[in-house]
């Protein structure tokens, strides 16, 4: 995990990153206004947290509903991933009482599950439950459906911009 707090700028004259990519099962937090992006969400979910007071924003890209003792990075699972992101936000100076959340993804596309809920919907349910347990309100969501999504979190405003292959851009 990298925190872009500007502290590493002393060594070089390079501009701060304007866009930070978040891979699958990864999270990033920024306090310097960078845009956080993640791409190719199918049944995966991108959870964005924003604390306007601390000027901090974070994005996690989770793949499966719950860790249940499985191996892998915390950010791979909805429950531990949201938890890890909240902690990282706090480490960057944010406060959970002033955080708001937005989520996107959790599509039902290509789910061959014979019965029961799809992975996409189980991911969404788990994300919401975990956010609820932290008392972090959900300000916007774009979940479900049968299409993929790519996200850009504009960390200054907290706007989450959702792009899909065959439809209009959605800003929540």
């Amino acid at each position, binding site marked *: 995990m990298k925190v872009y707090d500007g502290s590493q700028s002393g060594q070089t004259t390079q501009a701060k990153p304007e*866009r930070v*990519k978040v891979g699958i*099962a990864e999270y990033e937090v920024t306090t310097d206004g960078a845009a956080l992006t993640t791409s*190719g*969400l199918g049944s*995966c979910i991108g959870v964005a947290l924003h604390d306007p007071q601390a000027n901090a924003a974070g994005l996690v890209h989770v793949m499966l509903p719950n860790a249940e003792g499985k191996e892998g990075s915390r950010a791979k699972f909805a429950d531990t991933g949201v938890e890890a992101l909240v902690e990282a936000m706090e480490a960057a100076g944010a406060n959970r009482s002033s955080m708001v959340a937005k989520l996107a993804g959790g599509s039902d*596309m290509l*789910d*061959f599950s014979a019965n029961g809920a799809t992975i996409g919907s189980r991911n969404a349910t788990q994300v919401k439950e975990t956010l609820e347990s932290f008392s972090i309100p959900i300000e916007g969501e774009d979940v479900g459906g049968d299409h993929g999504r790519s996200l850009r979190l504009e960390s200054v405003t907290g706007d989450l911009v959702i792009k899909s292959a065959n439809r209009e851009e959605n800003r929540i």
Partner: protein
Amino acid sequence: MKVDIESLGTFNKLAHEGAEAATASLTQMTGIDATVDVTKITLVNREEVGEELEGRNFAGVQFGFAGALEGETVLLFDAESVGTITDALMPGMDESMAESGVKEIGNIMMSGFIDGWADYLEATIDHSPPAYIEGAGSSVIPEPPTDAEYDQAFVFKSEIEWVGESVNFYIYMLPEYDPLAGLMADHAANQDDAIPIDKLGVFNQMTTQGTEKAADNVEMMTGIPTESEVSRISFAPIEDVPKQIGDDTYVGTVVEFTGVPSGFLMVLFDEQSAVNVAEALMPTESPGEGLTDQHKSAIEELGNIMTSGFVDGWANVLQTSVEHTPPKLVHDMGRSIMDPLAAQVGQHQEHAFIIDSEMKTDEIDFRSEIHALPNEQELRQALEDLRVDRADETDADVEKIFEQ
């Protein structure tokens, strides 16, 4: 020799950490912020190593290494990014200095990479001084080690993305077979999980046969001569699976197959290829612009027969029956097509084997990729059964297996 899943996982992690160390050196020297995008172990036919580099120019460094592991490794920068990297290293550097810039940075990165391996293995790995290389496509990749016994080579490949720039660079490592096999055996935790290495080779060739059969079906249906091009079997952490496909929009079909092994199979076309191949299938010109519904239904039909061809190729060799669901048509971002399939497989496993193949034709601009994501345990079972049932024929003589 057998490889077990855990040792493949360990070696994958090792390659990933080596690539991280190399990337950290780059960031420290230049201030360029880069991240390791994909690391995978691929078992590939010797002559196909580096096919994915075709059509681009590269500059980089090459090392030989010896000790606990022996072989060759290269670090490659996209030709276009050489200037940016050397400029970051030494602003205003003359173009003629680019070579020494690449050499210096390559040297430092690759020392990090190889030291990472040696530390983990608690062994010594020496490497030769870096040699500067430049060239087009796969010509920059060293010859895979020759081994009369095996047609395939293990390739450790990392793609590193440079944040904020659309530039990738690559590390390829091509170890000699025997020392690698020995190390893998030493690190094998559980022989029950092990897959005999030559069976993986057979499986790779089955994939080649499957792809050829799929290509034949395309040819039969469209009348356009179609060649199967690349086929390989890779091993990667489940979260890296969707990254095997680009972010571009693809059109194609997905099926779930059942039997031993079960899993998912995708047939994907880039949008232009989809239009071109669909036109070839249609009796009259399609009205309308771009990809129409008629194109899509032609693709659905084509995806269906390609899937059947591919799956039949497997079932033939395994002497099992592999069934598949009717194809689901997809038209979406490549990664988001792969993502739900990886998630479904990922409910039961940490790592996945990914089978990739490509086909193309010279007659029209057309390219297609087939990706299969089998259940790991069942794949192991299928390979095990192959040994039991057809022990006399599995000494990598796939030709013979197919003579039914």
